[in-house]
C-alpha cells in the first residue's frame, strides 16, 4: 500500500500545481490578496507530497519491492545499499522524479527566501514555477510513471547498469539537476516581470542570487561528472564532448553570460534585452538537454529512453515554453528599450564581448551536437562530430574571453581611457611576458602550454593586483568582489590544468608480464600479476602494480576488471592522485599465460581541472551571499 501512497502523493502534487496556476492568478487579476497569497501554502503542500513520493520510491528500492516495475528493472537484492538508494535516479522514470523533486525544493526555497521581494512578483513567480512543474508532473505520471506495478513480481530484480554502480551516481545527478532545474528560477522571475510589465530594479536585483546559486550547482555537477568519467570509464579522459555532456554544458555557458549580463543590468540598467533572452535561453537549453537525453534521439551512456512518445511530449513542452516566452518578450520589448549609454572602452563593453563570446561558443556546441541528428533525421547519412570539431571551433572562441576577464575588471563603468588602463596594467604585462619567457626557458617549449601558462599568469597577477588595490584603497571587500576573484582564478586554474594534462600527458597501452617494468615520465611501473577478486555484486580480477621513482616506492596500484551479473565487463582504474600529477593504471584483457594488457597514464596537473571547477562554483556561492541581497527593507 505504501507504493500507492507515493503514487497518490504524485497525483496530489499534480492537482496542487493546477490549483496553484488558477487560484492565485485569479487573486492577482481580481486584486484579492487572500487568494494571491495562497501561492506559498500551495507550493509548500506540493513540495511536501513530492518529497513523500520520492522517499516512498527510495523505500521501495531499499526494501527490494519488485512489484514496482522500475525497481525490478534497476535493482536487485545483491546491490549494496548506497547504490540501491542512488538507483532511484539511475534510469529514466526515477531521474525524472528527481527532477520534479528538485524543482519542488527550489520552489519552496523561493517561497521561503522572499521576504524582500514584492509579494506580487513572488506570487507570480511561484505561479510560473507551478506551470513548469505541472508540465513535468504530467510527463512523469502519464508517460514515465515510476510507480507502475508488475502483475507478477519477479523473485529477483535486474542489474543496475554497472557503470552507475558507483559513488558518482549518488552525487553527480543531484548536483547537476540542482543546476539544471535551478535555471527555472531566473526564467520564472523573467516571465513574471514580463507578465507584470515591470522590468525594474527589483526584478533584476532578486534574480541574480538565484542564478548564481543554480549556476554554482551546475558547475559542481559538471565538474563531478567529469571527475566520475575520468576514474570510471578507464581511459583517462576528463571531457568527451558526448552530446549529453554538451547538453549540460550549453546551459552552463548561457548561465555564465546571464550572470555577467545581470551585473550590468543591476549596476547600469543596460543589457536588459540580453538578460531576458539569456534567462529564457538558459532554461530552454536545459529543457533541450532533457529532450536529447529522454527522446531516444541519442545513443549514449547517459541516454535514458528510446520512447518516441516521451520525446514528442518534451518537444511539445519545449515549443510551448520557448514559443510562449518569446511571444511575451516581443509583447513587452518596448519596456526593454531604455538603456543607459556607454562608450566603446568601458566595463559594459567588456561584458558585452563576454556575452557575445559565450553565446557564440554555446552556438558552436549546439551546432556540433544537433548537426548529426538533423542529418540523420533527413536521411542524409550518419556522421559523428567529435572532439576535433569542438577543439577547433570552441577553444579559439574562448581564448579572447579568458584574456578579457583579466582586463575588463580594471576598466571603469560607462567610460574609460585607453591611456589610463594601459598605465594601470603595464607592470603586470611586463611580469606576464617575463614569467612566460622563464617558463619557456626552464619548463617547456610546448606552444599551447606556454600560451596557457601565459594566460594563467596573466589572470593570477591581474586578479591579485586588483585584490591588493582594493585592500589598499581601504574599500570594504564585498562578497561579490571576492566571488568574482575566486571564480576568475578558478577559470585560470582550469585552463592551465586542461592544457597541461592534454599537451604533456603520457599514455601507454602495453602488454605486461609478471615482473616486467615500464618507465613513464620517470616513474617505474612494475607488474606483479593479477589475482581473482569478487564482491557481493560482481566478480573479476585485481591487478598488482608497484610504482617506483628513483628506486623509492611511491604508490601501489590495484586496477580491476569486473564482471557484473549481466556479464558486462567493467574496468576500474587505480589512481595515485596528487596536486601535480596523477598516475593512472587500467587493466585490459588477459593475453594468455601471465601476460595482461595494461594502460598506463601520466596526467600532469589533471586535478587542477576539477579544482578550477570547484573554485568557480565557490566564487558563485560567495557572490550569492553578498550583503546587498540581504537588504533590509521596511514596508
Amino acid at each position, binding site marked *: 500500500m505504501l507504493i*500507492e501512497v507515493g503514487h497518490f502523493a504524485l497525483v496530489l502534487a499534480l492537482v496542487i500545481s493546477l490549483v496553484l496556476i488558477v487560484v492565485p492568478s485569479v487573486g492577482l487579476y481580481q486584486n484579492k490578496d*487572500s487568494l494571491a497569497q495562497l501561492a506559498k501554502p500551495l507550493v509548500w503542500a506540493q513540495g511536501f507530497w513530492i518529497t513523500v513520493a520520492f522517499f516512498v520510491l527510495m523505500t521501495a528500492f531499499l526494501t527490494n519491492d519488485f512489484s514496482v516495475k522500475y525497481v525490478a528493472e534497476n535493482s536487485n537484492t545483491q546491490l549494496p545499499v548506497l547504490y540501491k538508494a542512488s538507483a532511484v535516479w539511475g534510469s529514466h522514470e526515477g531521474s525524472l522524479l528527481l527532477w520534479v523533486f528538485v524543482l519542488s525544493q527550489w520552489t519552496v526555497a523561493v517561497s521561503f527566501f522572499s521576504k524582500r521581494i*514584492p509579494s506580487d512578483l513572488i506570487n507570480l513567480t511561484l505561479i510560473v514555477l507551478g506551470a513548469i512543474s505541472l508540465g513535468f508532473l504530467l510527463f512523469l505520471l502519464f508517460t514515465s510513471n515510476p510507480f507502475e506495478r508488475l502483475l507478477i513480481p519477479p523473485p529477483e530484480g535486474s542489474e543496475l547498469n554497472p557503470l552507475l554502480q558507483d559513488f558518482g551516481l549518488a552525487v553527480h545527478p543531484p548536483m547537476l539537476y540542482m543546476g539544471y532545474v535551478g535555471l527555472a528560477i531566473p526564467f520564472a522571475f523573467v516571465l513574471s516581470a514580463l507578465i507584470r510589465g515591470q522590468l525594474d*530594479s527589483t526584478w533584476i536585483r532578486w534574480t541574480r542570487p538565484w542564478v548564481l546559486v543554480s549556476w554554482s550547482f551546475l558547475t559542481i555537477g559538471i565538474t563531478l561528472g567529469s571527475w566520475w568519467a575520468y576514474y570510471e570509464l578507464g581511459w583517462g579522459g576528463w571531457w568527451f564532448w558526448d552530446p549529453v555532456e554538451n547538453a549540460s554544458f550549453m546551459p552552463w555557458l548561457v548561465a555564465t553570460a546571464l550572470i555577467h549580463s545581470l551585473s550590468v543590468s543591476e549596476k547600469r540598467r543596460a543589457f536588459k534585452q540580453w538578460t531576458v533572452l539569456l534567462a529564457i535561453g538558459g532554461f530552454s537549453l536545459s529543457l533541450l538537454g532533457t529532450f536529447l537525453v529522454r527522446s531516444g534521439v541519442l545513443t549514449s551512456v547517459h541516454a535514458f529512453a528510446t520512447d518516441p512518445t516521451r520525446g514528442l511530449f518534451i518537444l511539445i513542452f519545449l515549443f510551448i515554453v520557448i514559443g510562449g516566452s518569446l511571444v511575451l518578450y516581443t509583447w513587452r520589448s518596448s519596456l526593454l528599450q531604455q538603456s543607459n549609454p556607454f562608450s566603446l572602452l568601458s566595463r559594459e563593453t567588456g561584458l558585452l564581448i563576454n556575452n557575445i563570446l559565450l553565446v557564440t561558443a554555446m552556438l558552436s556546441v549546439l551546432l556540433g551536437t544537433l548537426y548529426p541528428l538533423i542529418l540523420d533525421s533527413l536521411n542524409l547519412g550518419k556522421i559523428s562530430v567529435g572532439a576535433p570539431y569542438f577543439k577547433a571551433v570552441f577553444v579559439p572562441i574562448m581564448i579572447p574571453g579568458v584574456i578579457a576577464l583579466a582586463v575588463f575588471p580594471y576598466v571603469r563603468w560607462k*567610460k574609460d581611457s585607453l591611456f589610463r588602463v594601459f598605465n594601470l596594467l603595464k607592470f603586470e604585462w611586463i611580469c606576464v611576458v617575463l614569467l612566460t619567457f622563464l617558463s619557456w626557458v626552464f619548463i617547456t617549449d610546448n606552444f599551447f602550454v606556454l600560451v596557457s601558462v601565459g594566460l594563467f599568469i596573466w589572470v593570477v597577477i591581474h586578479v591579485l593586483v586588483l585584490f591588493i588595490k582594493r585592500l589598499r584603497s581601504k574599500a570594504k571587500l564585498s562578497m561579490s568582489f571576492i566571488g568574482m576573484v575566486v571564480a576568475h582564478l578558478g577559470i585560470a586554474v582550469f585552463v592551465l590544468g586542461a592544457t597541461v594534462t592534454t599537451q604533456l600527458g603520457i599514455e601507454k597501452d602495453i602488454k605486461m608480464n609478471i615482473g616486467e617494468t615500464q618507465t613513464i615520465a620517470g616513474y617505474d611501473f612494475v607488474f606483479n600479476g593479477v589475482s581473482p577478486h569478487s564482491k557481493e555484486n560482481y566478480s573479476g580480477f585485481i591487478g598488482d602494480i608497484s610504482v617506483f621513482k628513483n628506486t623509492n616506492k611511491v604508490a601501489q596500484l590495484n586496477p580491476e576488471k569486473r564482471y557484473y551479473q549481466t556479464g558486462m565487463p567493467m574496468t576500474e582504474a587505480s589512481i595515485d592522485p596528487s596536486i601535480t600529477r596523477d598516475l593512472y593504471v587500467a587493466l585490459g584483457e588477459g593475453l594468455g599465460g601471465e601476460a595482461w594488457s595494461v594502460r598506463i597514464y601520466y596526467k600532469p596537473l589533471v586535478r587542477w581541472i576539477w579544482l578550477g571547477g570547484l573554485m568557480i562554483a565557490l566564487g558563485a556561492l560567495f557572490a550569492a551571499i553578498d550583503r546587498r541581497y540581504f537588504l533590509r527593507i521596511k514596508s
Partner: protein
Amino acid sequence: MIIAWQFIIMIALTCSFFAWFLFRPISQSQSLSGDESNIAINQQRQDELKSDINQGLIADDQYQVAESEIISTLATELRLDQKESIAIKPLPWTLTIILIFSVLSLGIYSQLAPKMISSENSLTEPMSMSDSIERLQSYIKENPGDFQALKMLGLAQIGIGNVNQSIEAFESAYLINSKDIDLLLQYASAIAASQDGQFDGKSKVLIDEALSLDPQSIQVLYFSGIVAAHEGNLSGAIEFWEKALYLMSTNHPDRNIIEEALGTVLNLQVK
C-alpha cells in the same frame, strides 16, 4: 480502483491546510510593494556610489552622471499604484477547492492506478511459473482487454514450453494492439518456435511490421537480420546487424551476440 483510507486522509490533510490559509491568509503587511522595493534598492545603489567616490574608485563627473541616472531610473520605476485589496468569503472558496481537489485527484488516480496489486506474501515468496499463469488467466477472465496481461501470459506460456497456448495469448494481444514492437517480436519468435525455428510465413510478416514501425530498434534490426539470413540474403543480414551495432553503445550487453552472428555470416559470405 483502490480507494484506501490513506487517500482520504491525504486529501483531507491537504484541503485542511489550504482552508487554514484561506481563513487566515499570510499577512499582506509582512510583504512589500514594488515601489517600496525599488526605492530601497535604488537608495542602496546610491549609498554604494557614495562609498565608491569616497574611496576614489570613480571620478567626480561619473558620480554626478551615475547619481542622476539612479534618480531617473527610480522615477520611471515608481508607479504609485495603491491598490485596495478586495476581501473574499473564504467558505465558498474552501468548499470549491475541496470539491475540485477531491474529484480531480481521485479521477486522475483512477486512470493511473494498477487494476490489481500483488499481495504482500507474493513479495516475500516467489511464485512458481504455473501459479503465475493461473493467476494471469484468472485476471484475464475478468479483464479480457488487458493487453499487457495477455502479452505477459504469452511470455509465461512460452517460458514453460506451451508454444501453442503462447501463440493464442499473443494473438489475442495482437488483436488489441498490433503496434507494440515487443509483442510483434515475441509473437514472431513463438511462431518460429512452433515451426522448428524457421522465421517464415506469419513470423516474417510480423517482423516486417515491426521494422516498418521502428527501423531504428536494435531488437527489430537483430530479428530482421535473422529473417534475411534465413532467406539466404546474407548482404541484407549484414546490413541489418551492422546498423544494430552502430546504434548500440559500446558496452551494450547484447553486442557480443550480434557481433558473433555477424562474424558467422561474414565467414559464410567469404566462402
